[in-house]
């Protein structure tokens, strides 16, 4: 391998690492809700604290369970969205490209609110 090729490759890797580090800091936080968009338009926002099954039109089905959401059904040929990592309180994205469905974690404290009792003690 020539020297300039090595520089080129190391350049890409360094750029990717810087990008990754930058995103890590931007993304840090508690993700309490997920937003589902279809074709760029909002479909709905759901709390990760509440277990439920969400039908997205007739194309996809996703399930919120134990504070994380994953795609359980999709009518696309590749089913890649069903293999993607679940979105939980650390955030994340699930994409079903053929159906243009995107599930994105959103920063928020909805789950924390529900977890916190209204009274610390009952006398």
């Amino acid at each position, binding site marked *: *391998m*020539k020297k*300039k*090729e090595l520089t*080129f*490759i190391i350049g*890409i*890797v360094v*750029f*990717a*690492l810087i*990008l*990754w580090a930058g*995103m890590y800091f931007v*993304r840090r936080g508690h993700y309490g809700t997920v937003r589902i*968009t279809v*074709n*760029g338009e909002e479909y709905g926002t759901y709390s990760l604290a509440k277990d439920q099954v969400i039908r997205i039109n007739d194309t996809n089905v996703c399930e919120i369970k134990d504070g994380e959401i994953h795609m359980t059904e999709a009518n696309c*040929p*590749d089913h*890649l*969205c069903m*293999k*993607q*990592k679940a979105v939980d309180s650390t955030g994340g*994205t699930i*994409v079903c*490209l*053929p159906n*243009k469905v*995107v599930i*994105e974690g959103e920063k928020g404290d909805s789950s924390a609110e529900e977890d916190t009792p209204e009274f610390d003690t009952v006398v």
Partner: protein
Amino acid sequence: MNQKKLSYLGLFAAVAIIFGYVESLIPFFAGIPGMKLGLANLAVLFILEKYTWKEAALVSIVRIIVIGFMFGNLFSILYSLAGAALSLAVMTFMKNKSGFSILGISVAGGVSHNIGQLIIAGLITMTSGLIYYAPALLISGVITGLLIGTLTNEVLKRIHF
């Protein structure tokens, strides 16, 4: 186009199609959409080295359309074309201008293929959050590019015509 060249291009289009199928059997998927080995690029790289970008583009287009009709849909065809077009454009530029070896050209091709698909995916879903996949796709482009480049080098050493 002479008959010998025509037969070779047909042969390599067939090889690229089979690679596309073999690749679908390899579970190279780490939770990142769009991450794949890019075996078919071996045939495209080989053609690019032996002939010009025009022949490589022809083989690429035939491969994508056949694979699309066999295993995918119109959507996956357009999606693949975007990645392949950017990748081939970058590889051609690298081959003519940079003086890179097959290895460097292959890495540039792998990385630009992933970037092309990410851009199209972002445009289709209108989601900026996809940019979070960029670092992983860049790194995987480098790794698969090195792998495919090494393989192509070995094939070039052994096949002469």
